[in-house]
């Protein structure tokens, strides 16, 4: 049925919420062909209807074809546009270098767009104020610089930047500068208590 591919294409994108599915070049080509085919058919009929007496049935056919084409174009644009929007979000999340598994799902044109956008954004951020502002950090309002952590293992001695030394025992709780314990949280020594 006319217009069905367009629907499939949009559905495919909508289904996969956050992660970008592989660029469906095959379906895009199908839809493009459909647009071209219907357009040509309409051109012929339209030409005819100008030359001869306009028959109501032809007019209706033209109307329906016109609507299908319109819909197809909209689907294609929405598909491409929403993929770019997704890529944009990724630029803010991952920075200018995309993870390989994401990159492999993109079309060449998308990769090209991404690097252009990336450059554009970097230029803009550099141009703010005297020495630029990195807008891709400070995404959330800052919370206290100190956080409470629970020690999950018997770690032993731990030196803080202010010169004090802590003895980290299993299940002991500490109130520490966030930046100094982030590493140990990642290593699984600490658990952040919220």
């Amino acid at each position, binding site marked *: 049925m006319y217009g069905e591919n367009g629907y499939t294409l949009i559905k495919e994108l909508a289904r996969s919420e956050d992660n970008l599915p592989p660029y469906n070049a095959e379906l895009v080509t199908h839809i*493009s*062909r459909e*647009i*071209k085919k219907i*357009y040509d058919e309409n051109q012929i009929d339209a030409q005819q209807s100008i030359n001869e007496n306009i028959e109501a049935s032809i007019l209706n056919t033209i109307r329906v074809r016109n609507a299908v*084409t*319109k819909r197809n*174009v*909209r689907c*294609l*644009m929405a598909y*491409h546009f929403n993929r*770019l929007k997704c890529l*944009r979000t990724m630029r803010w999340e991952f920075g200018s270098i995309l993870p390989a598994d994401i990159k492999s799902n993109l079309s060449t*044109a998308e990769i*090209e*767009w991404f690097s*252009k*956008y990336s450059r*554009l*954004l970097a*230029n*803009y951020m550099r*141009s*703010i*104020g*005297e*020495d630029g*502002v*990195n*807008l891709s*950090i*400070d*995404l*959330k*309002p*800052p919370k*206290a*610089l*100190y956080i409470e952590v629970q020690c999950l293992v018997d770690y032993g001695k731990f030196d803080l*930047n*202010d*010169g004090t030394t802590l003895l980290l025992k299993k299940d002991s709780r500490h109130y520490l*500068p966030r930046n100094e314990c982030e590493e140990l949280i990642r290593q699984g020594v600490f658990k952040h208590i919220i």
Partner: protein
Amino acid sequence: MEDLTIDDLDNISTGSDDHVQITPAEVIEMMEEAWTNEKFAPEILPNKSEIVDIILDQITTMEENIKKLSSSDFTKSIYQLEVDRLRFLVSSYLRTRLEKIETYVIHILKEEEKRVERGSEKYLTEQEFEFAKEFSFTMEQYFDKMMRFYPGVPADTWSNKIIQPNNNTFVFLKSKKRIEGVPIDEGNAESDLVDIQDGSRVIISYNSVAELVKNGDVHLI
């Protein structure tokens, strides 16, 4: 912190040529207001780059001072936290604008052009304008490439759809003075007028109050 003297701060000054004495605390308050206004207004608002620049300067100075403090000084974390808060405020404000610029790029550039022709105040900063132009160009390039499959199709008739902000959207605001005769937009030709009291809070169509937001009589919340 000592008071700042700001000479040509159009958005802030009272219109006289006198120097306006303004404290950094007041600048921060203006920044907060600009931030929430920008967050809740559907369209992009006139830029507040003077305020942004002042705050960025203050941050730089403060960061220099923080470096001089010993790390055992517990006040260091307070100074640092304030800097982080201000940095968040400014970044979030600029990000909000950038998102609008990207979403409504064609519309925004068109409107900006009209403002330039009229000789009225520009909304975008020079840097934002530069970004908008380039962004619009990359989008156009990309879609030209993607939609090239059917030469001759009169695409204009159905796909020349520019995304533009919905300025009929409803917003909450707090009034900073008594305002008389605000039209309630109901989509009718004639609309009811309403007076908004100083300090009161209302929900109303953005269209009705867009100018009041821009001139600072009300504050979106």
